[in-house]
């Protein structure tokens, strides 16, 4: 081992490896230099979890108004219908820009950068793929089985590309988000693990859900910064089992009530049929609403509390299950009884609710985030429209 080695250019992993090969007694200088470099290196876990000196609570605000968004939405609807769906790409960009632009953290707004033509191309491809799948699966049930397997293989790729596009089109303070997840990891998280849980009778499904969230979070970037997270499987098990248990109890109560009511109407087949249709629909809505509210609120609170943007921000969420359930139920009722016209109102107040229950603590490092070289190569607002940047998704 020579003394003129330049350890400063080593990565953290290389430093650790070098330290193990260095003999303390033979080369005490090298050893102590390595120790010092390891202790100060930013990738050292000790440094990552060191409490920063000056965190500052940043204001999270959503300033969108239901009336204003209603006018955007209704004109979008008319133009989309009148152009047989073509305008839907422009409509999507306008409503996304409205929601992103009205969401601000620490006085800085988000922006949505996608161009309508990119969305339109993606949608045309998606429509063609979907039609081909739909028609060929009707053409032959055997072929549809082959396609279903093919879809399993393509699915992780679609997830990566979709996240890649959506993150890349989101910017904050003129710096883009990004997604660097690769096919192999996505295949494990979204196909292999969920299928493997079949052998545990789905009991281990919450563990697979945790893997999915970890995959998404840890591969998300903001400029040159990584998101890191330490999600705990225990919370996923608690949230999933609680949601499942409550859902089953509610379904049982409904089944019992239906049986009771049907008994009262003995001999009136019409009445029973009508009531049980309404009740089973109602049951579906309530079970779905309650279970998804339990899961969303518990997991979101956990996810925000254990995730951070390295040296730039930490997060918090204080969503209550009751609050979320109330929001969803009132939204659904309003949308049904207004024949859909309350949709813009529901979307605006949902975003307001989510923003109000989000905390962001900013570290001084946030001002130093820089875009990665490939991001600066094409400016934040410049069109990126290679084929693989398309958002291939329905809806």
């Amino acid at each position: 081992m020579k003394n003129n080695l330049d350890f400063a250019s080593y990565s953290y992993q290389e430093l650790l490896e070098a330290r193990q090969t260095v003999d303390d007694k033979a080369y005490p200088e090298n050893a102590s230099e390595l120790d010092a470099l390891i202790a100060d290196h930013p990738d050292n876990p000790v440094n990552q979890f060191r409490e920063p000196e000056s965190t500052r609570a940043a204001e999270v605000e959503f300033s969108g108004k239901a009336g204003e968004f209603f006018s955007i939405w209704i004109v979008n609807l008319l133009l989309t219908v009148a152009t047989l769906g073509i305008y839907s790409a422009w409509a999507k960009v306008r409503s996304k820009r409205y929601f992103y632009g009205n969401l601000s953290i620490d006085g800085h707004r988000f922006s949505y950068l996608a161009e309508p033509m990119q969305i339109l191309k993606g949608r045309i491809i998606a429509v063609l793929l979907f039609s081909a799948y739909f028609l060929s699966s009707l053409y032959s049930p055997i072929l549809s089985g082959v396609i279903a397997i093919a879809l399993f293989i393509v699915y992780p790729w679609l997830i990566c590309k979709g996240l890649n596009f959506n993150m890349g089109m989101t910017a904050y303070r003129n710096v883009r988000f990004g997604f660097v997840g690769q096919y192999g990891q996505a295949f494990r998280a979204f196909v292999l693990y969920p299928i493997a849980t079949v052998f545990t009778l789905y009991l281990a499904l919450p563990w697979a859900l945790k893997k999915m969230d970890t995959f998404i979070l840890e591969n998300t970037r903001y400029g040159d910064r990584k998101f890191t997270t330490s999600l705990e499987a225990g919370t996923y098990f608690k949230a999933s089992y609680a949601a499942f248990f409550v859902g089953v109890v509610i379904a049982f109560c409904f089944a019992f009530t239906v049986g009771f009511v049907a008994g009262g109407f003995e001999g009136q087949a019409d009445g029973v049929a009508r009531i049980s249709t309404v009740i089973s629909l109602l049951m579906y809505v309530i079970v779905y609403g309650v279970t998804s509210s339990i899961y969303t609120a518990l997991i979101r609170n956990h996810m925000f509390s254990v995730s951070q943007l390295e040296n730039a921000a930490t997060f918090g969420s204080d969503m209550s299950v009751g609050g979320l359930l109330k929001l969803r139920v009132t939204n659904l009722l309003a949308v049904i009884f207004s024949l859909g016209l309350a949709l813009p109102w529901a979307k605006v107040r949902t975003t307001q609710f989510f923003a109000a229950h989000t905390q962001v603590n900013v570290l001084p490092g946030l001002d130093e985030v820089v875009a990665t070289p490939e991001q600066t190569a094409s400016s934040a607002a410049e069109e990126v429209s290679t084929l693989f940047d398309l958002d291939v998704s329905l809806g």
Partner: protein
Amino acid sequence: MYGPYEGQYYLAGSSSCQRVIVRITEKQLLVSGSEGGELVCCSEQPELKVQSRVGNLPREVVLPNRDMLYVEGGPELDSWLDGNSHMSVASKLEKSRAWLIGSLVFSPILLFGIFKYLVPALAITFAAYVPYSLTKVTSAHTLAALDKSILNASQLDAQRQSDLQMAFSATIEQFSDDEKFYKVLFRDSDEMGANAFALPDGTIVFTDGIVELMDGDAQLLNAVLLHEIGHVEHRHSMRMIAESLASTLIISYFFGDVSGAVELFFGVSGTVVQNQYSQKLEWQADEFALQQAPRVGLQPEDFADAMQTLADSHPGNDYLMRLFSSHPSIEERIERARAAQVKE
């Protein structure tokens, strides 16, 4: 010269930000620091990349050096930024009362028109262009899949099957031609009960259940056969496929960007829309059967009887259920058959 307007200025490639004052002259956009007042940059309109206006959000402007400027201002700033382009047309429409009222009135009318007339018309065209060789393969695959899942070999004895085939032969010959050849198969199925269905190539399957229910009555079973032939002649399978594909795509695009709870709502409405289609197709098959009845020596009354027999075996049929079910009310179908009888 207009301004000053307040703005936020972001340097390209980094998250740093400074507050700025923006002024516009006839030709140039001038950006200066809000405190010191020194000029940060100046640009002419064609060099800028300007995003269209959305709601009351500040305007987003990308400068030639890829710095980004957010600026809030009045109508003068808007018209200067938009220049000669039409990109803020949407924003003007959204602020116009006439357009809002127009959208409220015409969106539902157009949607109704699309579902009621355009989609079925497209589906009929699509169905007409599907070659017969393709429907043959489709039918063979579908029958194979059904035979593996819910259909079993018929329990009817061979003598009875050949008697029934004899009874059907006149009808089958009447409608078969060089390309299309009708044939009847018998299958046993607990899941399907008393039922008959047609595959698009002219293969018609009767379950043992329906043969038992009609008590092997040749007239009644021929009436059912004629109804199924109606489905094949009108290419209903292909129409159903095209219509459900089109309405799935329309529902996911027009209402695509909606939250989970609402998808549920549209999921239900999608089912209702599709079942309305198939009800219409059932009527068409009935009509075909009633019109063609004299060619094979049947009376409309035979349909009424066949329907009545089916009705007696399926109690319970009210409005709400019908909305969610694919067949029209049996009572109505009997009435139509009787009405056709009277007309003759």
